[in-house]
């Protein structure tokens, strides 16, 4: 099976869907002539032309809103945010208009739009460019939120997202764009809302998603080798819809839970998970649910310290040992 980068996997998903459906258009800042700020869309302009691959001005409220309006007429725009951090300047468009228009119209309208781009810290760009808004987005009924961790998942999930008739917010990660993984050449789709057990274990369940999946897998290898702890790593892949059943099945097996997320702790995705696990698997738990999140402050710039603000394998190991104590 070919090994390609996460970046290439996203690009292949875009290209395949552009090829399949002429209603699909890719829009965003620097996606066309510049070949993508992170080179995700490299080569798409040459292949699909300027009507399908569209450079936008730095005008997120304008172009995201425009995409939402076009999607109401059946265009299927895939909008790139150079950073998901810029969602704040388009907040009203994304979370008042895209999220609510179906409801407010009594189900007459739907918005088949995808908004995608990286949402992560770890690149020393400071607090304004390091937001991870998946909890904020998922707090809005009407939207779907996907955070893939691997090249394989990114491709299969993005293709499903583009075919989805509801607004899907697809959160990638600049730290993962260069990560490689096996991706088949034949077409495949991964349904939204289906978690994936990335490592099977029996002593502790780590529930995680996004780049923290990689940290958790690295930590699990050390925990097995040095501490004789068998860790099961459940990758949510999709935040909303949420595959809580796979999480609960794992908890029923290990009876201990650590949630690992690159979120600020207050009212995070992990907060919701912890609520649901205690509510639905209380009798299965042999101890309190633990959670490792980003240290609760705006993203610090200082490069060596930012690595310690975010979850990393060492912090996961420490948190896992605490959860097992």
């Amino acid at each position, binding site marked *: 099976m070919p090994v390609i980068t996460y970046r290439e996997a996203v690009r292949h998903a875009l290209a395949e869907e552009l090829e399949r459906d002429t209603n699909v258009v890719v829009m965003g800042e620097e996606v066309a002539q510049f070949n993508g700020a992170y080179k995700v869309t490299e080569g798409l302009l040459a292949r699909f032309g300027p009507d399908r691959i569209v450079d936008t001005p730095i005008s997120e409220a304008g172009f995201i809103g425009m995409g939402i309006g076009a999607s109401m007429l059946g265009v299927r725009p895939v909008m790139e945010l150079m950073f998901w951090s810029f969602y704040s300047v388009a907040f009203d468009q994304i979370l008042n208009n895209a999220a609510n228009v179906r409801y*407010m119209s*009594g189900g*007459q309208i739907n918005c088949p739009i995808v908004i995608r781009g990286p949402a992560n810290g770890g690149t020393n760009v400071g607090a304004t460019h390091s937001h991870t808004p998946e909890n904020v987005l998922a707090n809005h009924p009407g939207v779907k939120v996907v955070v893939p961790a691997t090249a394989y998942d990114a491709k299969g999930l993005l293709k499903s997202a583009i075919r*989805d*008739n509801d607004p899907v917010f697809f959160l990638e990660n600049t730290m993962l764009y260069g990560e490689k993984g096996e991706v088949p050449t034949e077409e495949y789709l991964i349904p939204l*809302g289906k978690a994936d057990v990335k490592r099977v274990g029996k002593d502790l369940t780590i529930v995680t998603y996004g780049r923290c999946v990689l940290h958790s897998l690295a930590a699990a290898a050390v925990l097995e080798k040095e501490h004789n702890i068998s860790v099961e790593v459940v990758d949510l892949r999709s935040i909303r819809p949420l595959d809580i059943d796979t999480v609960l099945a794992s908890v029923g097996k290990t009876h201990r839970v650590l949630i690992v997320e690159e979120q600020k702790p207050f009212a995070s995705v992990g907060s919701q998970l912890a609520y649901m696990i205690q509510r639905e698997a209380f009798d299965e738990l042999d101890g309190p649910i633990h959670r490792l999140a980003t240290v609760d402050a705006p993203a610090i710039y200082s490069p060596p310290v930012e690595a310690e603000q975010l979850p990393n394998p060492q912090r996961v190991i420490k948190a896992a040992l605490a959860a097992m104590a």
Partner: protein
Amino acid sequence: MSKKPTANTEKKATPAAAVNDFAKAPINARLTKEGKIELHRKMVRIRRFEERSLRAYQAKKIGGFLHLYIGQEAVAVGCCSLMGANDHVITAYRDHGHAIAVGMETKPLMAELYGKSTGCSKGKGGSMHYFDPSRNFWGGHGIVGGQIPLGVGLAYGVKYKGLKGAAMAFMGDGAVNQGAVHEAYNLASLWNLPVVFVIENNGYSMGTSQARSSAGALAQRAAGYDMEWGQCNGHDVYEVRAMMDVFLTRARETNRPSTVEIDTYRYRGHSVADPDNTYRSKQEIEEYRRTKDPIQVFQERLLAEGVLDESLIEKIDNEARTEAELTAEFAEASPFPTPDDIQKDVYWESDHPAERKSEGRLFFD
């Protein structure tokens, strides 16, 4: 119309203004007698609907806000009367007039105000959120200026699909200071999108007059985006149609966007929650009503043309009053949605379970 105007550009230099008698503008000259009566009838129907909805609000049948369109009828009716099959409309929260102007039935409109399941949005949207995609009417939006980028998207969709049409994106004079509006202007002009931005200037953004809220002129700001602009009076439906026809035709034929400012006036407060006693005088309202009421102006015009007579005027008015009364009866008799309805119409997928592709939980408790 004036592209890139200089500081002392003539304020009323619209293409419509070049025609002294707006009835002779080609788009109006082509009107049949029945077409003229229908314009009048629509304005009367809007007014009687709005008056009846106000009474329902005062009787506590309606919750939330109620932004009445009374006084502005010629704007929505004039503009929407020009719509072709591929033309689209989107507006803000003062949306009842546009909904009736595009042809929505009034019973579901009133039922929506009552929060009933027979409402046009099943009681889920309310006064500010009327929609009817089957009539190319895309709302009904509550956040000032937030609908304008969507309007550009409608124009983009029309153009992308290779259709010949245009979008009208309505806003109030208060919306012109919102950033989203300016972003939309830029995109529309940059990408040659067939949209006409319609500023319904009723003089007040809520309780703040134009002089206290907007620096400089309104429509002329379009020139900064290399867009054509125009301005006209909004109390004469002929004048509205004469100007809008020029800009809509240009949008359909050349994809060029434009911004038009239509001067109008609302007789009631910003919403029914506005006691309307702090920022303008009763004399000001009375003066407009006496000299520029859009229904009176057009009625007199059609009387002079021999299109209307007193008995037909009375008949149209009686029918509109009866229609409005029946909407209230319909709304009153209709059921409320149930708590089971709260989670319907949230996701396309949850409303189409047989076609659902995703898995996992969509809703949480």
